[in-house]
């Protein structure tokens, strides 16, 4: 029998934990950048459409899958999906729900540790008096494990370990006393910090404190619709992708949290509440901070250039400098708010990543919660150290690409097919509506069966065969040259090979060749972890057969 007898403390606690799982750094760093790159205000239309026809269905699928599996004592995806499909192969698809979490936690905790470190640096006033270049250099020095500003040798590693220890300790306290308690503190704090920064984002005045633009310039930049972009498949692909990452679907965490809900209790309303809470944080708060503040002080051209490399640079290299334009005290205070907000967004997500592994060990090998939690911390530490030590060689990005991007799409697609076509919509609909505290619109029966899987398949194929520069028009006219960001060209390392071929400086060539080595090594490492987890699932299955549980 499973050693897992845990429960949630309260319904609000469960919803906050589930919303905390979904709300992550991407809400503040990825969404505004995606919106700017994909048509400004017009991005919101495909984004909300994708939320309605892909996000909400996936939330309902995952919540009801979790509650269904929990009925049989399963709290991780391998045996949750196994209970829904007769074919033995399904439990190995469920391995994605363990693997993704472990691999993502490995690099995500590193990112989370930056936010923790930056909170301390903001309190200590490290950024006070530094110019923008010096603050940008501080970040570059930090991630290259360069000299420490706090006098602690290998400061990023120390913060990474502290962050992991904190996560592991909270996880070891259990669902209600650990994860839920942190969500009950973290989510309100996040909303409070977000509201403060959003207020600042909305009230920048040109000429005051060094600002060159009013808030309205940044808000116009973000929200002015470019309806021509609506016809671009790449905009829809970007919107669908953003919905994935923001809701943390396709990871196995939603199923795990929902597996502790009893069969007679609601999942339909809970899923909607947590889902819309995430949307509020992303659209209302996330859209009001990064871009309006950056444009207010740097102008549109600089920010357009900077968002090409994502939101991380703006968040860590630029905002600390901009905050100090409001004066030393408010600058430090805003730094604490911003990085504190990112930290709470991060920790509520990374805690969710620990629960599937813990549930698996408790269910299948009778481990107690504490041992299972510490084993998670140890595995994440071992798997995460390469992302810390070899950050500059692209190990971090490689983990993010395969575990944090591709794996989500693959698992979400397969679980939707399982739910709608193998388990069957008749039983699936019963699972969604059973105990529901809202009336689930009947049209979703059709959407879940046909539209969601087709959309997911399109997102997957769009990622495998992405045309060069996202130019689908040219691709459909017959000139289908693959982009270096497509899965096929990523596997072939085409981008790196092109860079090596174009390089003339021997030092640069050597650096790129080293990068190629670390990229390939990361993939082998991730594949080894996946195979090891699949082997563990096989062992657990054999154990179940021996014990007469199957």
């Amino acid at each position, binding site marked *: 029998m499973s050693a897992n007898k845990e429960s*949630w403390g*309260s319904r609000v606690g469960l*919803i906050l934990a589930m919303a905390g799982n979904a709300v992550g750094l991407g809400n503040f760093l990825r969404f505004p950048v995606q919106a700017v790159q994909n048509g400004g205000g017009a991005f919101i239309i495909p984004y909300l459409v994708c939320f309605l026809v892909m996000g909400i269905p996936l939330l309902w699928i995952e919540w009801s899958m979790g509650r269904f599996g929990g009925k049989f004592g399963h709290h991780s995806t391998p045996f949750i999906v196994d209970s829904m499909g007769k074919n033995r192969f399904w439990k190995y698809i469920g391995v994605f729900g363990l693997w993704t979490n472990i691999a993502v936690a490995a690099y995500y905790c590193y990112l989370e540790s930056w936010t923790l470190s930056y909170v301390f640096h903001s309190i200590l006033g490290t950024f006070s008096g530094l110019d923008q270049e010096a603050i940008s250099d501080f970040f570059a020095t930090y991630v290259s494990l360069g000299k420490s500003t706090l006098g602690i040798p290998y400061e990023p590693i120390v913060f990474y370990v502290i962050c992991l220890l904190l996560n592991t300790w909270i996880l070891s306290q259990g669902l209600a006393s650990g994860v839920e308690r942190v969500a009950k503190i973290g989510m309100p704090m996040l909303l409070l910090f977000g509201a403060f920064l959003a207020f600042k984002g909305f009230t920048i005045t040109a000429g005051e404190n060094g600002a060159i633009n009013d808030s309205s310039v940044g808000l116009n930049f973000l929200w002015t619709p470019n309806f021509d972009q609506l016809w671009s498949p790449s905009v829809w692909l970007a919107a669908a992708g953003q919905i994935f990452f923001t809701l943390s679907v396709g990871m196995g965490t939603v199923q795990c949290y929902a597996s502790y809900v009893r069969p007679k209790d609601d999942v339909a309303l809970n899923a909607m509440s947590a889902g*819309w809470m995430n949307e509020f944080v992303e659209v*209302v708060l996330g*859209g009001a901070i990064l871009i309006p503040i950056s444009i207010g002080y740097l102008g549109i051209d600089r920010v357009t250039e900077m968002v090409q490399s994502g939101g991380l640079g703006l968040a860590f290299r630029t905002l600390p400098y901009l905050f100090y334009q409001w004066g030393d005290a408010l600058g430090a205070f805003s730094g604490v708010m911003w990085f504190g907000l990112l930290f709470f967004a991060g920790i509520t997500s990374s805690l969710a990543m620990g629960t599937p592994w813990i549930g698996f060990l408790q269910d299948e090998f009778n481990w107690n919660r504490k041992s299972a939690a510490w084993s998670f911390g140890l595995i994440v530490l071992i798997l995460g150290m390469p992302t810390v030590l070899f950050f500059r060689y692209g190990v971090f990005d490689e983990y993010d690409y395969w575990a944090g991007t591709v794996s989500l799409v693959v698992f979400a697609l397969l679980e939707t097919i399982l739910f709608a076509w193998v388990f069957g919509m008749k039983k699936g609909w019963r699972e969604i509506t059973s*105990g529901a*505290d809202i009336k689930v619109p009947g049209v979703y029966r059709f959407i879940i069966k046909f539209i969601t899987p087709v959309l997911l398949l399109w997102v997957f194929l769009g990622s495998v065969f992405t045309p060069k520069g996202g130019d689908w028009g040219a691709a459909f006219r017959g000139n289908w040259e693959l982009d270096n960001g497509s899965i096929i060209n990523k596997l072939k390392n085409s981008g790196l090979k092109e860079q090596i071929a174009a390089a003339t400086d021997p030092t640069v060539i050597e650096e790129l060749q080293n990068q190629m080595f670390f990229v390939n090594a990361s993939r082998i490492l991730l594949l080894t972890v996946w195979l090891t987890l699949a082997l563990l699932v096989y062992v657990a299955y054999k154990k179940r057969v021996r014990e007469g549980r199957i």
Partner: protein
Amino acid sequence: MNTSALVIMLTTMTLVTGLMIFFFVKVITTPPKPEPDSYLDNDDEAERQVPNR
């Protein structure tokens, strides 16, 4: 702000905030199911126990 940006922004923010509040209020105002339910905190509330037959 220009009109189209303002319209899109306000419509989106009102819609998202409104739906977030609506569903959250519905969660906290919906009476819980009788014990045993999924939540520990309300286990001892006498009025929520299933009556003995």
